């Protein structure tokens, strides 16, 4: 009996590893990258750097709460500190993977909450090289996936997954993601246009353990065609803080609670 058990175990082990297909890798990667914890908070410093080195800085607090399992709906709350002309602005997103987001913007100068049209998840997030999708994720169902090979990024073993949009309406041809086999975080990603030219590159520049979750605390997105890049650093990142669902409401959009936006 014991022997059979052992054989079963040995027989299953490599099978399980090899059974992981491209889609599963990307599902796990999305869960590790964009869904860890029930909720998340970080002070985000975003530097937009042009090819001549001129910098513009956007600084914000970002709060996220998951509605359910990884891959499901999420709510985001973003409060801006810098630059001065957007200070005290807040921005709320209800993200639904399979359909368009709901987005609201609070404009403090005229004390107005405005719902904004959000048709395109591939558009730039606050003028940076990151798109809304890069910040909050792309619906797994929109692409097909193939593990092309396995390769090291630095000293980490990675799956190299090619994702190709199922529809023809996507603005990119395909992308290649280096997913860490241990943490499932994306350590590098290259996006290719429809002609097959590489035009955007993501790198996870620093990964740290935050409250038990491996977290990319420094990342860069570079536009290889324009030379413009955006560096993002998470300060004071934390998980499972017990963010209440009612934070994501017009009341707090107008007046963000002190304890959540420091």
């Amino acid at each position: 009996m014991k022997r059979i058990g052992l054989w079963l175990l040995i027989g299953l082990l490599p099978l399980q590893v090899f059974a992981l297909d491209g889609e599963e890798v990307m599902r796990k990667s999305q869960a590790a990258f964009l869904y860890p914890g029930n909720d998340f908070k970080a002070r985000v410093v975003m530097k937009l750097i042009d090819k001549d080195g001129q910098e513009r800085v956007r600084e914000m607090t970002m709060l996220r709460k998951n509605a359910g399992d990884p891959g499901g709906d999420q709510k985001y709350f973003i409060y801006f500190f810098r630059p001065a002309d957007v200070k005290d602005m807040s921005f709320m997103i209800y993200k639904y993977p399979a359909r368009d987001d709901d987005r609201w913007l609070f404009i403090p100068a005229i004390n107005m909450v405005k719902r904004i049209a959000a048709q395109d998840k591939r558009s730039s997030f606050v003028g940076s090289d990151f798109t809304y999708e890069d910040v909050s994720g792309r619906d797994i169902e929109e692409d097909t996936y193939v593990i092309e090979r396995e390769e090291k990024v630095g000293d980490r073993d990675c799956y190299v997954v090619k994702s190709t949009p199922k529809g023809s309406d996507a603005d990119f041809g395909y992308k290649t993601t280096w997913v860490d086999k241990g943490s499932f975080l994306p350590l590098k990603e290259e996006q290719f246009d429809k002609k097959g030219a590489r035009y955007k590159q993501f790198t996870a520049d620093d990964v740290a353990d935050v409250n038990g979750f491996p977290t990319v605390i420094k990342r860069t997105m570079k536009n290889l065609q324009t030379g413009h890049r955006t560096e993002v650093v998470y300060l004071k990142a934390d998980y499972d803080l017990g963010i209440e669902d009612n934070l994501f409401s017009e009341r707090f959009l107008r007046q963000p609670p002190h304890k959540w936006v420091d």
Partner: protein
Amino acid sequence: MRRAVAAGAVLLVVPLAALAEFTLSGFVQQNSAFNAGAANPDGRHEKWLEERVQLKLDGRGETWHVLAKGDLAYDHLAQEAHSELREGYADHVASDWDIRLGRQIITWGLGDLVFINDVFPKDYEALFAGRPLEYLKLGVDAMKLGVYRELAAFELVVAPSFRASRIPDARRFHLFDPMPAVTNRVTVTPGQGEAGLRIYRDIAGYDAALYLYRGFQRTPAMRPDSLTAPTKITYFYPKLSVYGASLSGRAGDGVLSLEGAYYDSREDRSGNDFTVPNSQSRLLAGYQIQPAEDLSLGFQYYAEYVHHYAAYRAALPAGFPADERWSHTATARLTQFFLHQTLRLSTYASYNASNGDRYLNPELRYSFNDQAWGALGVNVFGGKPWGTFGQLAHDDNVYLQVRYEF
């Protein structure tokens, strides 16, 4: 009410003693607007010419927040300096209610430069003279109580005194005046305050709101002492109640906004007094889409309906321009960002099909860096001489705003 205010004040003062976090910020700004066509009625060639400093003090704790925002400006046209408290209030925040006391800017409703349930005071001169958009709104000295329940959120605004909207200065703008010969003019402001209530909640993914207001018209009506031989004109603010609703949410690829209200002209419910605006219904439908990255388009259809039109026409003296029973206005706004959203082109256009009133405002705004930005724009007006925009047909201007924030 008074007890609630006193209790609020005590609740505010106690935690102020606790460890606080204060920040001081502000800006310096230059703002000019040059006539593109005719000179002003006073002969000058600028609509606006000023330097301005704003200081903003912001303090926060767990359960409170205070804000004071004050401006100091030098007006080259009037050749005088003036100061203004733009906002100055204190908040107390509890788990399911909060209160704000002091001078505050309140914006209700969904319209883009179309105001139905946004009954709060505005500075139209700021809009027409090319000042930054935030100056379109004026603060009200009020108590605002918010109560947040499962059923809905309630926002009660009580202002002990009335603040009028600011209309363009007759020395700088060519305003329509049916009795230009009468120079003896007095303004009577209401001695009473006003109150408003907004109730809002989510209904199946749509933002729904109800609005109630009891107060006065924000812009003055004018009443001559005699129609045949007038010697004196009295400006006054007729009594008004507004009952309205709004709904906004996703529809197709964009955001749909619907808003409406009944304007109950309590000063003249029969509609027989031509000096008082008739009771009206106001309706707005708006649609906003993002057809491409960094591009958004907004369209609005706005209608006004005069309820006692026959009475209005019967009472209107001969020679006075008459409004139509229905007024239909269409507006469009295009906003396009360039250069990583540091350059913005925005164009707003409004056209009233009933009286030809029209307004066009293209603007280019660029952020030089994280502290400084500048905007260059044009205001173009047209229509009949008595229309809201038509009367300003000789007031087209080019404006410039430059601001350094710290």
